[in-house]
Each structure stands twice: as structure tokens, then as C-alpha cells.
């Protein structure tokens, strides 16, 4: 399993991660980021893409 961490002090809710891994990240009705904290290893590539596109570089994958 992969553990996903988002630094909510850095996150500005730009939502670009949502396009890379919509099963992990979403914007709620108030345009605030919500995410699931763990994902299957098979999702690694898309989650790393979400890490890459985050303008605030707020997302990290904890091994």
C-alpha cells in the first residue's frame, strides 16, 4: 500500500492533482481538497503524477 500525505499548510486547493488521480483526490462542494490516505501500489504512477503537478508541491508519498 502507498500512504499519501498532503501538507494542508501548503495546499492551496488548486485541484490539479484531481486530474491525475481522481480516485484519490477530489475537490468538495466548497472547492477544498479531500483525499484518501492510502492507495494500492498499482496506483503509484498516477499518484506520482499528482505529486508532480501540484503547484504548491504539497503532496508526498510516504513509503
Amino acid at each position: 500500500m502507498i500512504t499519501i500525505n498532503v501538507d494542508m499548510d501548503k495546499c492551496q486547493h488548486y485541484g490539479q492533482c484531481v486530474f491525475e488521480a481522481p480516485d484519490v483526490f477530489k475537490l468538495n462542494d466548497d472547492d477544498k481538497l479531500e483525499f484518501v490516505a492510502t492507495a494500492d501500489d498499482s496506483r503509484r504512477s498516477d499518484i506520482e503524477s499528482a505529486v508532480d503537478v501540484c503547484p504548491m508541491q504539497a503532496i508526498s508519498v510516504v513509503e
Partner: protein
Amino acid sequence: MSKSVVIVGASMGGLRAAEALRNNGFAGRITMIGEEAHLPYNRPPLSKEVLAKEVTHEAVAFKLRAQVEDVTWHLGDPATSVDLEKKVVTTASGKSFEYDGLVIASGLRPRVLDLPNGKISGRHTVRTLDDAIGLRAELVPGAAKVVVAGAGFIGCEVAATARGLGCEVTNVAIDPYPMIRPLGEQLAAELQRRHESHGVKFKLNHGISDLTGTEKISGVVLDNGEVIQADVLVEAISSHCNVEWLASTNLDVSNGVLADSALRAVTTDGKSVEGVYVVGDLARFANPLFDNEPRRIEHWNIPTETGKRVGSVLSAYLADAENFAELVATLFMPLPSFWSDQYDMKIQGFGMPGLADRYELVAGELSDELVMGYFRGEILIGVVGIGMTSEVMKYRKELVS
């Protein structure tokens, strides 16, 4: 013998290319050659939140993934030439590096004003971490008088950050409105109004002709003779491409480095060079999402997009993979994206709004949160939002459909 890749430019684009080479199965040696002494870091915060606080490498460094643990870093020693026939890169210190695959990711450097009394202290640019450390030291909260030359995104971000620190800020630009080229007149004029409401003064439609001061800047002289008192001048006017090290090659370096759709470098007579690839701000390539005109795109997601593309194609090339021709033929059409924090504004854009012949407010209010759509003919080619993320994302989907 296993093959090797040299990546010239140890910043985001080079790093993403190295990761993508590994992700696509390339197991040979990767050497990253960088001018700066620092491991790769994220540049956008240097004009924003990091500049407002403490500028450290730790605050902006990219986490190095396990895939690139075995990469060789050759930092603080820029490439100065390459022999494309012998496949050797030479650095300033005289070291040479042979390669089977070469990635050109040497990026840009800021252009600075050529001024008669220019050799005095107090002049700054904001491209590198060291630039930002030097600038931060002079942004004395509540005291420094700052002139920002250039009203693009970086200039406006620096202006907003310096205002946030309580500095006196004047933005001087030859453009009629800040950020007008990507945003168009209506939104640019509104953003000027918002900057002014935060206390930034603008001197638009003006250039800078000289500085006053002996050892240190005391003022900035505009082209109409007006003098603005200043302790600090931040130059955010435009950039030079770092292509001098390619001067002895036959590559088309007239504006960045021309690349084909596989991002292979292209010669002045229009031939793609096998094994030589271009990544990031330097890459001038056609994007079929818009048209067939090769352009450089200086947006933050392009180093990542081009780095991934190059990692995929180059690893197939080096492995003599059967799918190489297929990968080369695959269309490359990354959606440019950009973002900017200024005061409490979260500005986010997608596509190429600067190519539009028409724009219209598609959601929100001009004086509040909003979404602006940019059109060429009837086709949406760009969207820019201030806030309203979900609305912006709806139009983003339309851009790629």
C-alpha cells in the same frame, strides 16, 4: 556495455527526464550536469511565499525519488560545449562526459537591463535560489523602497510579496497593463486595480534608462527623466536561453532549441538528431492541441511534461525497442498550465490564452472571483480563473476534449 545518458541542466525538467528514463526501464548511467551548486528545487515559491519568509534549499527542494538514487550529480560546473559527432559534453572546469543519449535541459537565465550607471549594488533577479536569498536580505520589512522592472507574472508576484512585507513598491514596465500578454486588457486592467488597492504604484508604458547612486542604488531613472527613489531594483523583464554551449553544433538554436514532436533536437536544415532531446523552457515544439507553429512555453508544467515525454522516447531509443517508431509517432500535446499567488488571489490558467483573438467573462464577476475564457475563432484555447476552481476545471476539460 551499458549505455549512458547525460542531462545538461539539473533542475526540474532534467530531474523529471531522469525519473522517466528509469520508470521506462533505462538502467544505464545517468549524469546530471548543473550550473548551480544545488540539487533540483522548485522555482515558483522564490517570488512568492518563500521570498516572504526564509529562503532555504530545504523549503523548495524536490524530494529525490528512489528511482534516481543512483544518478550522478555534477553540480556547480556548467556545460560549455558539446560535440554531437563524438557524443561528448565538456564543462567549464574542462571535464568531459561521453553519452549515448543527451538531454538538453539548460533552461533560461534572466535578461538584465543594460544601463550606463549599471555597475552598482542593489540590483536583483529572481531565477535561482541564491538570487532569492540575496533579494530577501534586502527586502527590509517596512523600510525598503523597491522598484520592480517588468510586469509579467514574476514581477507582479515580487511586487505583491514586497508589499506584503511592508516595502514601498513601484512597478515599471513598457507594457500598458500588468500581465497583459497572457491575460488580455480587461483582466490585466482589473489586476492592476487590485495591485494598486494594495499600495503598488505603477509606471506603465515606461522603460528604465539609468540608475542613480554611487556604490548602491538610490534611484531609478525612467525614460521620461523621472527619478523614483529606490534601494532595490528587481529585474523581471524577460529571459535569455542558455544555448551558448550548443553554439558549435548545427542545431536550430534561433529561439531556444527547435524540437520535433518526439522532442528530438532539430538542425538548421530541418533534420531531427537521433539521441539528442530537448526538455523544458528551451524546447520549441509544435503543439497540435493549438496549431503547427513551434513555440517555447515558459509555464511551470512544461518541464515535467517534456521530461516525461523524453524519458519515454529516449529509453526506447537506447534499448532499440520495437515500439520506438510508434512512440515517436504518438502526438505530443501537453496542456500548458500556470498559476500565480498574489495577495489573497489564486490565479490559475490553462491552455494558450495569449494566442486568443477574443476573450469573455464566462463565470463570476470582474471585481471578484471570476473565470475568463479565451477564444480563437469559436474555439476555446485558454481559460484563466481567479478562485472558482471547480468552474475553471470545467473549462480545462473542454480544452483537452
